[in-house]
């Protein structure tokens, strides 16, 4: 969250990121690179979604990939249905006929409509989140237990999708999709159109996120993060706000999942496995869970650096090792992520400008206060 003295820097940051993102295709025309960048941006959206629930409402969702994966499957189902006439000539998608499914299952039917699929891509994760949230938050379960339960849900949903092979394609996922065509634009995975779609989605997600955290609801969410009991004593329905943050976060992640299907041209159970969920948490923590932009940048920078170094499996293993170490270091020393370095440097700079070594200047105080409250909220009472 931005403090008063640095809020202008944050606004510049937001504008700079948006401009760079939108200007990029002017300099890059290689479809393969654009596809890569679109992927990073989508991870940015995903990380931002987690930031909204974790950084601003204190709900550490270790199963964020469930929403991402479900969104991805919704889009893939819609795109798969359009291939029936070409690939199998009628009835059901190819993988279903391999599994001896003769008629299209009822829950596939509505996906003939793109409008429904896009709605479902956000609604299905949100509804699932709502149900889980209703049980969990109403029972006043918080903190570590929410983390464990969301992680368990991730494992269970992943197993279920793999298990229901005849309806979901099992391990292989849903492949060989058609290209999405909306409003006369074809969103080919390697096209500028898809890149812009991802970029504008990130901008939209940032704006929606900002609108939420600047609203009264957002303030209550942050208050719950800092001291749940106190907010309850003020008469707010804490579970209601927690569930709101949880669902919005799930819907945004679901949307990111839909985009990911467009970019990757398939949906797979690996989109909702533990390692993706883990990566999301790492991006968010490394970038800065206390800032939407920080979280998004965390994802973009981490995956960007990873992608530009190498794609070999051996390297990926080493990279993951480095990420693990970086993650631990950030958790230990910089709980608010790398973005907080900016605040720290700015504070130091201001202190020096104000005559060095002297008592804290009033402008520096607000920056110190959130850091202290951040620590306090995590203490065992």
């Amino acid at each position, binding site marked *: 969250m931005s403090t008063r003295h640095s809020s202008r820097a944050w606004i510049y940051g937001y504008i700079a990121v948006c401009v760079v993102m939108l200007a990029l295709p002017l300099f890059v025309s290689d479809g393969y690179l654009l596809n890569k960048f679109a992927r990073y941006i989508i991870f940015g959206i995903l990380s931002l979604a987690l930031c909204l629930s974790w950084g601003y409402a204190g709900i550490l969702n270790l199963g964020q990939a469930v929403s991402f994966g479900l969104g991805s499957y919704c889009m893939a189902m819609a795109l798969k249905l359009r291939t029936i006439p070409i690939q199998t000539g009628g009835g059901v998608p190819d993988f279903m006929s391999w599994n001896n499914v003769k008629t299209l299952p009822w829950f596939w039917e509505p996906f003939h409509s793109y409008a429904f699929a896009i709605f479902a891509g956000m609604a299905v994760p949100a509804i699932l989140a709502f149900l889980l949230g209703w049980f*969990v938050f109403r029972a006043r379960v918080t903190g*570590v237990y929410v983390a*464990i339960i969301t992680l*368990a849900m991730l494992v269970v949903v992943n197993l*279920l999708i793999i298990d229901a092979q005849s309806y979901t394609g099992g391990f292989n996922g849903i492949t060989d999709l058609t290209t999405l065509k909306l409003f006369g634009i074809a969103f080919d995975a390697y096209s500028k159109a898809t890149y812009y779609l991802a970029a504008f989605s990130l901008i939209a997600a940032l704006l929606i996120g900002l609108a939420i955290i600047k609203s009264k609801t957002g303030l209550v969410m942050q208050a719950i993060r800092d001291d749940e009991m106190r907010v309850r004593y003020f008469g707010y329905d804490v579970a209601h706000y927690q569930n709101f943050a949880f669902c919005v976060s799930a819907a945004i992640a679901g949307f990111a999942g839909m985009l990911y299907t467009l970019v990757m041209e398939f949906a797979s159970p690996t989109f909702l496995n533990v390692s993706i969920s883990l990566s999301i948490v790492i991006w968010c923590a490394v970038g800065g869970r206390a800032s939407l932009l920080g979280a998004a940048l965390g994802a973009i920078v981490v995956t960007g650096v990873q992608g530009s170094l190498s794609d070999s499996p051996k390297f990926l293993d080493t990279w993951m090792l480095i990420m693990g*170490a970086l993650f631990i270091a950030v958790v*230990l020393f910089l709980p608010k992520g790398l973005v907080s370095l900016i605040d720290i440097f700015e504070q130091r700079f201001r202190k020096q400008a104000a005559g060095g070594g002297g008592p804290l200047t009033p402008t520096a105080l607000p920056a110190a206060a959130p850091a202290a409250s951040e620590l306090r909220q995590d203490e065992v009472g």
Partner: protein
Amino acid sequence: MADTINQLSTGLSIASILLLVSLGLAIIYGTMGVINLAHGDFLMLGAYSVWFLQTYFGISLIPGLVLVFLMVGAVGWLVEKTIIRHLYARPLDTILATWGIGILLEQSVRLGAGAELRYVQMPPSLTSAVHILGTDQSTYRIFIFVLTVLLLLATYGLIFKTSFGMRLRAVTQNPEIAKCFGVNASQVYSLTFAYGAGLAGIAGALISPLKSVSPDMGIGFVVDAFMVVVMGGVESLLGTVVSSGLLGELSGGIAYLTNDTLAKAVVFTGIVILIRFRPQGLFAVRMRRG
């Protein structure tokens, strides 16, 4: 009749493995309030240690157990000394840190021992089956069951009958006052963490002949173990024992009627619903202080 006994014994076998895996987790959480997501990776480390000892030194599983306990315990001790101890004031962050530690362990093993599946041989003396009440039961599973009971008793004795256990209980109840009475709290924490990690190592070692050993084998177990802990509460060993038994029999039964995946889903849904209506009965007091 034989069917029912088979069913019960399958459930019991699942339950003993569950208990084996969750015991270390519950102790670490109960004493230190640390949710150890690296627990599954300690388990994986135990399995790899057995494989390593068997392949390179020809030490078979049962004599290797002590070595495995010491090796994995040492890793746990090191982890506590270097990382965990800085996070006692921030429980939510210990989840993150231990997850990071899990990645470190998993990737180190993957780079060091390779990502391919490894297989551990069952001790030859335990490969046969025993005839009980008209059914054939695997000797190895009975061995696991007996060893689990022994470990449970040992843990109980350690906590309630030794002077270390007394210090441990004192630190759990009130670290500040325990320190005033001269208890070295930081040493108690390190040893407890090491003990919990060592237990996970033994669990991994015992599971290794039943499942293939791979760097990412831990996560499934850790989730199951957490379900046990979430359901049973962590303040008492009894809660862990009862809920492992219940979940084991339940998973075994549902899996018999449908399949493993659905059993997992049903158990998970059941726990979520249970939480809604009886959070105070299932969870420890700790939860409400969060």
